């Protein structure tokens, strides 16, 4: 049998490539499609740096044999910013200083996107659960949780103001200085 042609819809574009047997979705994205945002932190499904959305659900792309999702829709961090504009999650990560080394960021943002698409008004507990598979060694998570909650608020504000208003920082959870749980 050997290598075969696989077709996926990646960030709304149909992409075809040749995959060696046993190629993970992560390897296909990085090596065949040149999409480097998703990272390989472990290859075992334990770090979350390779998280992407397959048919709108977050998965560890290192654990997906690419032949098994022929035809699926795949979304990566490269597809999140539209027309060069950061979306609410990205802007909230920037403004909230929710990145340090940046290696977990792609996976974190994709887990957050999946959550917010399913639940535009998540609780802190929902956010915490959504990123429970994404390891960050730098931040201690608090800034990431705050940024995702902030992103949800920005997106709701944008939606309630007709959808064409720019994402505005809500500010209510901006640091009061005393650290936010």
């Amino acid at each position, binding site marked *: *049998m050997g290598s075969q042609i696989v077709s996926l819809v990646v960030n709304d574009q149909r992409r075809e490539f040749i995959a060696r047997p*046993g190629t993970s979705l992560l390897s296909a994205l990085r090596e065949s499609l040149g999409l480097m945002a998703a990272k390989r932190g472990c*290859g075992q499904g334990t770090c979350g740096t390779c998280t992407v959305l397959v048919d709108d659900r977050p998965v*560890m792309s290192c*654990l997906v*044999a690419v032949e*098994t999702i*022929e035809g699926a829709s795949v979304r990566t961090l490269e597809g999140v910013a539209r027309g060069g504009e950061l979306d609410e999650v990205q802007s909230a990560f920037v403004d909230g200083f929710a990145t340090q080394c940046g290696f977990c960021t792609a996976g974190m943002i994709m887990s957050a996107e999946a959550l917010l698409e399913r639940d535009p008004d998540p609780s802190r507990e929902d956010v915490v659960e959504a990123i429970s*598979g994404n390891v960050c060694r730098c931040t201690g998570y608090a800034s990431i949780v705050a940024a995702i909650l902030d992103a949800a608020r920005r997106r709701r504000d944008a939606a309630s103001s007709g959808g064409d208003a720019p994402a505005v920082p809500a500010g209510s959870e901006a640091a009061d200085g005393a650290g936010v749980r």
Partner: protein
Amino acid sequence: MITAVRVPDSVAAAATYAAAGGRVMGGGTIVMAQVNSGSLAETELISLRKAGVSGIRVDGRVVRIGAATTFADIERSPELAFLHAAMRTIASPPIRNLATVGGNLFVPQPYGDFAVCLLALGATVEIAGPGGPRRAPVEDVLTAGVAQGEFVTAVALSLPAAGTWFHHKAMRRKLNSAAIVAVAAVVDTADGVVTSARIALGGVAPRPVRAVSAERLLTGRPLEHDVLNEAGRAARADIAPFDDAYASAWYRRRVLPVHLRRALLG
């Protein structure tokens, strides 16, 4: 090295491939990790993702869950609401979107939390293979596995009556941790006294095990603090705990009664 990945579109096609010796996989959470580290023995993968064995069907009190049904699917199923809390103790959302009901039966402890639930529920496993379809109690599959060329296509279980399902998983951290001790149980009571109990334990033996000593001890007695402690101590006869990166065998044995009691009393 992997030489072929099969994605059969039917159970029959999957059976043909399986008979030839490939490794059957559900979501890939175990198998692909081995592929990525070059440690998988088999050279062919057979995915059940498109073999028509996904989905949850409810027929009265009986629920049939396809082997390739993911944990996320169960979390979204209103009929299986009693399992939702248990599902959320397993790994993380990006894993639960991949990991499957069938695959979980073959995961080594202290993983395999759903298998612990199935054991408590007395599930029946549907198996396909060279000899045609067969059914087996989940105990048998957990103990003996399936034969060469066989694979699981579904599990069937009866919905527990309201108030009879209990689940508690002790972890090293609040989310995304393997079990120190997992307890799943269906316990019927009448007039405050246990009439029947089926208790399964995870994390405390190489396979999920029934706490038969505790079941015996509880039957005919009230679900009370002291009785449960006694049952928990009795259950130590049913386990074969191990040391691992999470906890020692001693610790698992030591806290088993605490967690058995917490499972049933909250």
